[in-house]
């Protein structure tokens, strides 16, 4: 039985590296912060609000996301969308991720899938 605390720590480490990629992929369809959070959770990538909200701002600052205020809804919401630069980065990271998964499977002694 794996120690719960140990598992939690390492899972967090593993996810920390993929949360940027997850956001860039998900935001190819524009979304506001809370909805993105829900969507990531539903997709099996549970994230904390206090990780995602700052991350969105930093990615926007680096030009990987663009944002736009939408005031049509019940309340004003800031929608983020992956920029062309962010999309290119996501493609590269996604291909790296696939390679990485294949390499891990190989190390695990079995064929991929």
């Amino acid at each position, binding site marked *: 039985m794996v120690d719960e605390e140990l598992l939690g720590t390492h899972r967090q480490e593993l996810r920390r590296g993929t949360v940027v990629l997850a956001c860039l992929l998900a935001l190819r369809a524009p979304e506001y912060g809370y909805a993105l959070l829900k969507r990531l959770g539903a997709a099996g990538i549970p994230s904390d*609000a206090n990780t995602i909200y700052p991350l969105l701002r930093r990615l926007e600052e680096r030009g990987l996301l663009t944002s736009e205020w939408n005031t049509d809804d019940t309340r004003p919401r800031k929608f983020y969308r992956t920029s062309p630069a962010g999309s290119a980065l996501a493609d590269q990271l996604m291909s790296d991720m696939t390679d990485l998964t294949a390499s891990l499977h190989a190390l695990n002694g079995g064929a991929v899938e």
Partner: protein
Amino acid sequence: MTSLTDRYVAATLRGIPEKQRADVDRELRSSIADALEDHVANGEDRAGAEVAVLEELGDPTRLASGMTGRPLYLVGPELFPAYRYVLFLLLAIVVPIVGIVEAAVEIGSGAGIGSALLEGIGGALSVGVHLAFWVTLAFVIVERLDPATWRREDLKDLKVLMAPWKVENLPELPTSGAVTVGETVGEIVTAGISIGGLLYLRGWSWVTDASGQPIPLFDPALWNFWFPVVIALLGLQVAFHVVKLVVGRWTIGLAVVNAVLLAAFAILFAALALTGSLINPAFAAATWPGLDDGDGIAMVAVAVTSILVSGWEAISGFRRARQRPSTEMEFAS
């Protein structure tokens, strides 16, 4: 909007630069409202849901620092080794020198040993606190500069400290000729204690006369000339150790200077002992008659010991000067 959310948003905005505040304010309120709506839809009461949502968001200070990228530490892991190096090097060199100089100045102005010691310790402490504060402040500021700027163009001296690590940076093995900060600190502290001890023993003794006045161990007449010379020699040794640290390794030249300083020290001490002028005659009379005799066992032992110890130190200086690592010579040729 209820007051808890207002307070949370206000606390977060405190850590956000002015021009981003309006945007962060609006987005954060909107996000909190979305989450709150979700919680209430799940059947929670509004007040409890608000607490839950805000606590999920966590410490507003952390949230703000995540948004701005401002660090939640004074000096981060990238700068820390350089910080520690600069701080310890400065403390090791400056603090003992200031302490000794301040004590010496106090002595020079005719003050007693006690007040000279206090002056020295006080001066050392105050310069140490100042150094630690200003060095830390400098690094805290550098830590907060835009990395893209300072790492490339500015702060050239720091860039040297931040240069990529190379094998040349490896410290030498302890037996080699390299001079370490640790041994230099030890040598300077030893010299400082010797000077302090001499000064202290001028006015204090564990032997007292009938009227309760201390009988100093060393002949008070020595303070007219020879002990100031001894203290000057010890001061020169401190300077020598600092120079040695700056040079970074023992060289033949340094070994010669070291030998001269040690020889002067040993010869002076041995001569004082063997001529019977080292120990206060009154002290000898009160404790061990014959202690001060130049040809007595005690003074011969003092002379022999000081010559042997200094001789050993002088020789080890030459040995370490020769022990350059072979790679060093290959690169030099």
